[in-house]
């Protein structure tokens, strides 16, 4: 069983603009379809390839939903176990990543129920013990720009932590993953009207939080 990815062998449509249903006549989707068929036939190497090319998206999503690395790792493992278990139920005419995010959100919801608090641990450049952050900071030519970005990141992380789970999921899928509203509704097993309402509410809350946060610190510009 191979543990290292064969770089360049399979090229998936991972870009936001290139996310297409599996049955589209492109090499990428054909490759994905072949991998799924091979995995269903018991080819663990094919399933590992599927993991390699989707694990970063899943890990990003779980971290954004759960807020810390440990829970994100556990959730990512659970996501791929469920992908393997229910791969036979995946419909060939639907978007694989939409189906993957549906599983991801279900796993994150289950884990959130076990934990009542959404604890976010963000990496701050001026925090002690963050060697990777300090190294990045030291190597950046524009220190001021980097510091501003770090502060913005801290602000948005705090703002996202105040959102309800469904609003956070809706805005992540729409604004960061680039799904259309109808796709978001399908992923979340909801309606387009409800998703629009959740997205609108989430954006308002983030804006309001940022205004209050900056007002406390005497700043006015995000």
């Amino acid at each position, binding site marked *: 069983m191979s543990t290292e990815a064969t770089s360049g062998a399979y090229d998936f449509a991972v870009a936001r603009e290139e996310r297409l249903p599996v049955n589209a006549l492109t090499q990428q989707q054909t490759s994905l379809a072949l991998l799924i068929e091979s995995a269903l036939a018991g080819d663990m190497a094919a399933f590992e390839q599927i993991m390699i090319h989707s694990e*970063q998206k899943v890990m990003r999503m779980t971290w954004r939903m759960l807020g810390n*690395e440990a829970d994100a790792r556990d959730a990512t493992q659970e996501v791929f176990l469920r992908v393997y278990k229910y791969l036979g139920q995946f419909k060939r005419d639907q978007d694989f990543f939409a189906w993957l995010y549906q599983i991801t959100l279900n796993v994150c919801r289950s884990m959130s129920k076990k934990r009542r608090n959404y604890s976010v641990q963000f990496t701050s450049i001026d925090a002690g013990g963050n060697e990777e952050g300090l190294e990045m900071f030291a190597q950046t030519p524009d220190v001021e720009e980097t510091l501003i970005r770090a502060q913005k990141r801290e602000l948005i*992380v705090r703002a996202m932590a105040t959102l309800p789970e469904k609003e956070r999921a809706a805005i992540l899928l*729409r*604004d960061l993953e680039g799904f259309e509203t109808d796709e978001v509704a399908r992923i979340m097993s909801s309606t387009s009207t409800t998703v629009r309402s959740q997205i609108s509410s989430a954006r308002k809350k*983030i804006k309001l939080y940022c205004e209050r946060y900056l007002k406390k610190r005497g700043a006015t510009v*995000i």
Partner: protein
Amino acid sequence: MNCEYVDQLLPLYIGRDLEAERSALVAAHLQSCPQCARAAGEYEGVNGLLQEFEPPLFSDAIYRGIRRQVLNEIERTSQAPAWSSMLSRLFGPLVQPRAIAITAAVLLATLIAASYFVIQRSQPSREQVAEGRRAVELNANSSNAGVQSNPQPSSSPSDRSSEKASSRPGVVGSKRLPRRETSVVAVAQRRELRSRTPVARVETSANVFQTPSAPAPLRVEMQTSDPKIRIIWLSDRSQTGAKDASKG
């Protein structure tokens, strides 16, 4: 289109989630309203800020570890015996904390109900306890009217013997009975009456033993916890009177 309505639509407008018609109306309003245009700019800033919501960089080792864990788990479950997987499918939901809590609550409620019924059956019924209390009260009230163990008012040897029996405290209704025919008859009558209604038994016994001429003995009935056992205390107020009655 007023500013309040536009303010409600701005979050969707900025994210291009508004339908074409209303989007055009909002755009036209923003052209002429600086305040709404400033609010739209703030929402644009929030949208840009959202792109900064990135997790920390995860190393390849983390991803390798995740893949290894997943593949090991898949291999482990595929090698598990068929009966093990079947059992986990059948009883897996029961292991959930919520299912365990519900099951424990149901068992506790069943245990409490069973204990209640067992205790209720072992204790005397309320009717029996009330009967004993009424008997005590009525006999205490009717002590002046005179109660004797003799069922017939006329003096006869059998009457005299039962009077003697009534002067002694004893246990009536149990196996230890005075060997007097009249007393046995009286006890039999009392048993028969007791099996019917407690009130009638008390009244009848009072009428049976009442004699107009003899002084009324003190009669106290006590119902024990055992419904089959009742203590009746008969105390003649005048020992001399009783002896004369028995002779006579």
